[in-house]
């Protein structure tokens, strides 16, 4: 798993509550990404980071925020979870531009 740990692996939360997912890497890679995976949509980019405190939005960023205070950690926060955010969330890392991404094992989030 290329030294990527996602936590928690599973979570059930109630609508309207804040949720934070954590991605931790031991590879010292510069780029980190958060994707969500839903049936019929494949993997869609939420946010990504190209360095400490440097982040940018992906194609489905509404309702999500991220933070990266250390190279090894990239946090994804749902400020107020909604049922539409029920999904499997994957963290990925890349060494640089035009290189393959390595993925974590995923976090299954259910918002009830």
């Amino acid at each position, binding site marked *: 798993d290329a030294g990527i740990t996602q936590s928690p692996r599973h979570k059930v939360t109630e609508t309207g509550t804040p949720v934070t997912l954590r991605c931790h890497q031991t590879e010292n890679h510069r*780029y980190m990404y958060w994707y969500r995976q839903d049936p019929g949509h*494949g*993997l869609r*980019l939420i946010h990504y980071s190209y360095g400490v405190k440097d982040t940018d939005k992906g194609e489905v960023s509404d309702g999500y925020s991220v933070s990266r205070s250390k190279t090894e950690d990239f946090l994804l926060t749902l400020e107020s979870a909604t049922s539409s955010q029920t999904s499997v969330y994957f963290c990925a890392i890349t060494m640089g531009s*035009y290189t393959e991404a390595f*993925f*974590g094992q995923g976090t299954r989030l259910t918002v009830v």
Partner: protein
Amino acid sequence: GENVGLHLPTLSVQEGDNSIINCAYSNSASDYFIWYKQESGKGPQFIIDIRSNMDKRQGQRVTVLLNKTVKHLSLQIAATQPGDSAVYFCAEIGASGNQFYFGTGTSLTVIP
């Protein structure tokens, strides 16, 4: 985002036969493509990549073909084995070199 899609959502093949999984992309400026394999409950795993200055690349039992004229990508798996059963995604790397756009995936089932 980029429009990356797959022709067939499911594919069943006999063990020992060759498999071909197809992918279409829309951005003619994209110059890096990756195939990923995803087994149930796991994150996507890198299989093989190809850059736009190539039309074919071979790995162990896998070959990726790129046809830039028709914006088509295919993954060929030789002598398909039960362990090849998984969902396969193609990914297109955007102009920034850092954003990956994934197709919806093809589910490959290998019949013993």
